[in-house]
């Protein structure tokens, strides 16, 4: 398989995140975001004015007001005026937009951030507003119910069973004990059925959080970071919206994105998967052909902390941070959006040889 490599080497050089918590009602979104922005800037020694491009991801529907991202911009300190953009998507896609901007050569550094406060509203109900507004949304099928349909399809296909799902949950929360930012850590009971066959332990915690990443190109990356996490490939694909026309036990969009990102060219040692439900890790492992030797979600993944709109960017950040620390040489990061893994992004990150 041949693939055109990116024309410019671009790396994640810094990553920061909040402690993700069930509620942050004492903080505005700007107040939640500010420490994270200061953190990534301090890691690199950059100031806002040094950043070539800024891009963020967030959702007005979580904030409950139109143009919610404009207030976050105040936290960035956009004065003198900055080159800036925003996607109404998870921050992983904001990172993708920033990556293309750096590829054009218009900028050498980019600040990417995203945030989400799920605490003010009933998240399961809010996410139903993502569905086909004419035929599906009026029925209010919530995110857990749709994930349960997917889980049942996997069980019916013989791809998993309830004990296997419980093992995914237990492993994720056990790994999260080493992650001080995580919301659910250690021994968490599987609990009662939330929507059969998913138990509360199979579902992600609902919480608030923010994350930020700094990208840099070429030599600039080496100046800013001892071991940059080079983006060897990044791609994203979307599937049909109607669940009835999809095979919920598979994720062809993840597989295609991984192929375009070069994931299958050489094995990865680590994978940070954005799988909010245990059953979705089963789907993604299959689509990405991850074998037992790959360390999956050492951070605990979205089952340990799932701030909506930031959780995908956090996967890229966590994968990059492992490369920064020398704990990984080639890592895959994945982000998802939409019901039952409708839209998926895959990035392949590498550290310089040691």
């Amino acid at each position, binding site marked *: 398989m041949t693939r*055109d490599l990116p*024309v*410019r080497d671009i790396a994640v050089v810094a990553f920061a995140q909040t402690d993700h918590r069930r509620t942050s009602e004492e903080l505005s979104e700007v107040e939640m975001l500010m420490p994270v922005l200061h953190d990534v800037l301090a890691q690199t020694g950059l100031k806002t004015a040094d950043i070539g491009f*800024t891009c963020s991801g967030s*959702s*007005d*529907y979580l904030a409950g*007001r*139109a*143009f919610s*991202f*404009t*207030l976050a*911009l*105040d936290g960035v*300190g*956009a*004065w*003198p*005026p*900055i*080159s*800036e*953009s*925003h*996607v*109404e*998507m998870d921050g992983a*896609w904001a990172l*993708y*937009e920033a990556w*293309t*901007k750096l*590829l*054009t*050569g218009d900028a050498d550094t980019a600040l990417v951030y995203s945030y989400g406060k799920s605490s003010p509203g009933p998240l399961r109900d*809010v*996410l139903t*507003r*993502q*569905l*086909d*507004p004419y035929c599906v*949304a009026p029925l209010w099928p919530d995110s857990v119910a749709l994930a349960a349909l997917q889980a049942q399809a996997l069980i019916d296909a013989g791809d998993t069973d309830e004990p296997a799902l419980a093992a995914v949950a237990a492993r994720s929360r056990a790994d999260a004990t080493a992650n001080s930012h995580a919301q659910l850590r250690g021994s968490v009971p599987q609990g009662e059925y939330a929507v059969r066959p998913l138990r509360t332990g199979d579902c992600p915690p609902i919480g608030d959080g923010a994350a930020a990443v700094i990208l840099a190109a070429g030599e600039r990356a080496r100046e800013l970071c001892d071991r940059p996490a080079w983006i060897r490939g990044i*791609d*994203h*694909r*979307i*599937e*049909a*919206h*109607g669940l009835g026309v999809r095979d919920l036990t598979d994720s*062809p*969009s993840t597989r*295609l994105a991984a192929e375009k990102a070069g994931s299958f060219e050489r094995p990865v040692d680590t994978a940070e998967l954005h799988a909010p439900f245990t059953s979705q890790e089963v789907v993604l492992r299959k689509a990405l052909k991850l074998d037992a030797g790959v360390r999956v979600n050492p951070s605990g993944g979205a089952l340990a902390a799932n701030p909506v709109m930031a959780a995908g960017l956090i996967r890229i950040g966590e994968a990059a941070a492992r490369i920064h620390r020398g704990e990984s040489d080639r890592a895959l990061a994945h982000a998802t*959006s*939409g*019901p039952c893994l*409708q*839209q998926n992004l895959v990035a392949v990150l590498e550290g310089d040889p040691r």
Partner: protein
Amino acid sequence: MSKEPVAVVGVGQTKHVAARRDVSIAGLVREAARRALDDAELGWADVDAVVIGKAPDFFEGVMMPELYLADALGAVGKPMLRVHTAGSVGGSTALVAANLVAARVHGTVLTLAFEKQSESNAMWGLSLPIPFQQPLLAGAGGFFAPHVRAYMRRSGAPDTVGSLVAYKDRRNALKNPYAHLHEHDITLEKVQASPMLWDPIRYSETCPSSDGACAMVLTDRVGAARAARPPAWMLGGAMRSEPTLFAGKDFVSPQAGKDCAADVYRQAGIADPRRDIDAVEMYAPFSWYEPMWLENLGFAAEGEGWKLTESGVTELDGDLPVNMSGGVLSTNPIGASGMIRFAEAALQVRGQAGEHQIDRARKVLGHAYGGGSQFFSMWLVGSEPPDA
């Protein structure tokens, strides 16, 4: 390292109206996309990626509607990005799409922006219920009227200038079959006698609330060489943002707008915009924004923009036509309005603007802004490719 030149080879839009009750949201966007593809003589399979933009999701009551629109826009199996940068989003969306081509990530990209404002009430959707803030604003006009008054005081412009802009734009719209407002019996007297909404902005000096979508097909040199009709070439493009409110902010002529224009002119080698640029399609939701943006964009010295309007320079047959399509004053599906500006600039340099085509359109500026005069996106397109 050089960027791949970006060409516009297809433009499509819906007939903009107050309410498109005959189509779903998917039907609306597909209509514009299909027209852009037809203009480019391309099919869905020729598109490598889709970049879609719109203003707040609350306008239609659908959270991240691109998920549901993936099928209607032929995006299944492809990358799909959703941009939201307030009122400037239509322009920003086109620029994000253009970057995909310029960075050689994709060869051909479909970009589209829409708003179906009849699904809700945009004016109250824009009246933000922020906790602990006095609820003094009714719609965008309530926010922008004080800045118009500041401009009038600073520049000493006569009170009539706003009505001249509205009268011109609404007459231009009569030549544009896609424009929302077609006021065949419009007179200057009627504009000046229309009810005062937000002093000094009268009813006929404000934008309508529209349903509509606009789409463009962007491609690289190879794609442009195969194009069915003359392409428009992107000569420069930029975005700039500044905070909503801060001590020292100039709402009349924001620094972010000046910086954005300067970046575009630098990329395109424009030394004197008034001399080097043939026409401007700008985001003027209230009449007075024409003279204000003419100054902000460098077409007139500070305090002098209204003289271009008053002397007829910005008329369709003037020396610097402004808002040939009829502008935002005649058509305003908010999320699409920026892209309609960008698309009109492309139509003009392609010679495809029909009845409102101007002579000698070699370089035309497309402009969009949003938020509290804080988000700017612009591109300059030309009939000839950028210097290699």
